[in-house]
């Protein structure tokens, strides 16, 4: 995609014209409306481009559970850290995870205590490490949603077919639609509509949200990540709310096909099967995780290493759980901006580049502090 094409979605005159239209659409609603942006990349874009402050007064955007690092339960993080501390192990992970504080220590601290922890940009890097270090076990921390899970499935399939037995994955993957229906059943949340994640939907396809519409009557619009995308999607949501309609609509047409990405999803299902998963803030959601299938058991770190990470719990005073579910905003957390900053994060939402607290701290502290 040429960048000049992307520039059009950021042009001041385009964006301001859309904001004018959104103001009219919101005014027509004549009531306050709460829209949840599910995806962490949306949260960042909304904060970074100053969209939240510029919104019409009756429109409120609530940040949801769409940051992969943030929703990873401390129990999974503690388990991975225990594995990283084992002799002969090279622990590999995406960068953000390094600084997330676990119950007793974070990965950065584990590295200081002698654990071999390597940041990788993709699973291909982890596979290469496995080839170059046949005497070591390479454990990759599989986190994230349907966007990253297929690439990790591909790595496991590749390791399996090429006999790379020292490549293992600790799978803490999550699937998005189950989390949305779980959120819909949270009465105190009172969400009126969802701004759905563009990249996840490019994989799972728009129909994945049919249940949200059918069972809960909430409008869903699948949005791109530029300011113009987000504003246009909000206009579409207001349009549905104005006439009391609820359907799945697609704004991000340049990124999402009607059937998603069947090839990637087939690979995902070939390697993983649904399992119950613990989410930070949401607890255990049945069928919302991805376990490595028996055929690939040789690459399943959870089966290979029996570690006891002890009792896991959230940091004292940290509201990440409530912030991830939209029940609280960062400004309502007593630690935010004081004990908890990006340099000294207490909870994962302050660490991750997609975290709600990091987004508010980086771009919106003017309004919060």
């Amino acid at each position, binding site marked *: 995609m040429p*960048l000049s094409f992307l520039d059009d979605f950021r042009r001041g005159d385009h*964006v301001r014209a859309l904001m004018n239209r959104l103001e009219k659409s919101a005014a027509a609603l004549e009531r306050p409306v709460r829209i949840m942006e599910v995806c962490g990349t949306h949260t960042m874009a909304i904060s*970074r481009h*100053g969209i939240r402050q510029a919104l019409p007064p009756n429109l409120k955007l609530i940040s949801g559970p769409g940051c992969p690092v943030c929703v990873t339960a401390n129990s999974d993080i503690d388990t991975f850290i225990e594995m990283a501390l084992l002799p002969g192990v090279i622990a590999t992970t995406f960068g953000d995870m390094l600084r997330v504080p676990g119950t007793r220590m974070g990965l950065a601290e584990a590295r200081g205590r002698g654990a071999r922890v390597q940041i990788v940009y993709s699973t291909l890097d982890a596979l290469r490490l496995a080839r170059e270090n046949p005497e070591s076990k390479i454990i990759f921390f599989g986190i994230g949603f349907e966007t990253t899970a297929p690439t990790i499935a591909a790595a496991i399939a590749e390791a399996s077919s090429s006999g790379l037995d020292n490549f293992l994955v600790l799978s803490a993957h999550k699937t998005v639609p189950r989390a949305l229906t779980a959120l819909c059943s949270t009465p105190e949340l009172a969400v009126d509509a969802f701004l759905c994640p563009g990249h996840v939907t490019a994989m799972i396809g728009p129909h994945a949200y049919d249940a949200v519409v059918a069972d809960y009557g909430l409008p869903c619009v699948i949005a791109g990540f530029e300011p113009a995308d987000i504003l246009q999607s909000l206009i579409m949501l207001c349009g549905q709310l104005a006439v009391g309609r609820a359907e799945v609509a697609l704004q991000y047409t340049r990124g999402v096909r009607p059937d998603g990405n069947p090839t990637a999803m087939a690979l995902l299902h070939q390697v993983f099967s649904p399992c119950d998963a613990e989410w930070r803030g949401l607890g255990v959601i049945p069928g919302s995780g991805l376990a490595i299938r028996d055929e690939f058991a040789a690459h399943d770190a959870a089966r290979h290493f029996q570690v006891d990470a002890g009792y896991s719990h959230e940091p004292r005073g940290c509201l990440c759980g409530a912030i991830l579910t939209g029940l609280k905003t960062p400004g309502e957390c007593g630690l935010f901006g004081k004990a908890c900053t990006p340099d000294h994060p207490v909870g994962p939402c302050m660490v991750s580049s997609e975290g709600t607290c990091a987004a508010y701290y980086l771009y919106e502290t*003017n309004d919060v502090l």
Partner: protein
Amino acid sequence: MFLFLRLEITFMVSNSNNDRRILLAHGSGGRMTQELIEEVFGTAFANPFLDRMDDAASLDLTGRIAFTIDSHVVSPIFFPGGDIGRLSLTGTVNDLAMMGARPLYISAGFIIEEGLPFQDLQTIVSSMQQAAAEADVEVVAGDTKVVERGAADGIFITTSGVGSIPAGIQISASGARPGDAVIVSGTIGDHGAAIISRRGGMDFNVELTSDCAPLGGLVADMLAASSEIHALRDPTRGGVAATLNEIAAASGVDIEIGEDLIPFQGEVRAACELLGLDPLFLANEGKLVAFVAQADAARVLDAMRRHPLGADACIVGSVAAAERDHCRVFARTVLGSRRILSMPSGEQLPRIC
């Protein structure tokens, strides 16, 4: 016949200059050290001060002197647009220039890991000399140590330098005043993007090039155009975002920039999009941010644009009195709303310079 030919080729390669390596003995202080100094450093940096081989350079300096030091540990040591040699020279020259000083003399300390190819050292030293010539400075003192394999990563270079501050020049990080225009000298984030593109085997199909360059000449032209330049800083580690926050804090002011006013290279922005990085946080090694009285801004901008290293210079924002008791930097978004531009935090990219 075939075997003979192969042997001959092997023999030639092992004796060629390509295969010579720096050994611990090169740092022993003995004959090999002497050879290294004469063959590499003495040849490249030849000047009357160095040629005397005294224990220290003896320099004639008058007036106010700027004096600074900068260590360089960049990885990789060779990158598009430069290498650790060029970087180590320009780093110190630019720190001097940011005080309004005319950079004059440089000293350099080399910590070399045993096994570094001799030719790599020659390339590094020669690009250092090339940068010194561009900056019109002389390397007048140096030191070399060789450490065991694993105790360093190829080569580390520390440079220090002195420059003379012309009479009447009062430039300081604490000098920015409400009403000043904020000027950047060109596209932002080029060095950081070039380093990332060389790390971890990332191939973007386009060559991202570091902007690594000595800024003394550009600053001299700016100073000739106006006596109302209040603060200068080269936005290296932490990028423009860190520089603006440092100046705001040191000067006790708020700063506001327009997001759409910042000049970026298309390739750099594209790479940042892909990797989720903010170009405002990326290092620059040949750019400066200037805080200039509004009345003189157009004149300074004009002088900058006539210099090759300031061709893309533009005004990106302005300074205001601090609204609260802590100083802040704001970015005006395309929507017209104002967001905080904070200090980068954590290890963004280690060892970029």
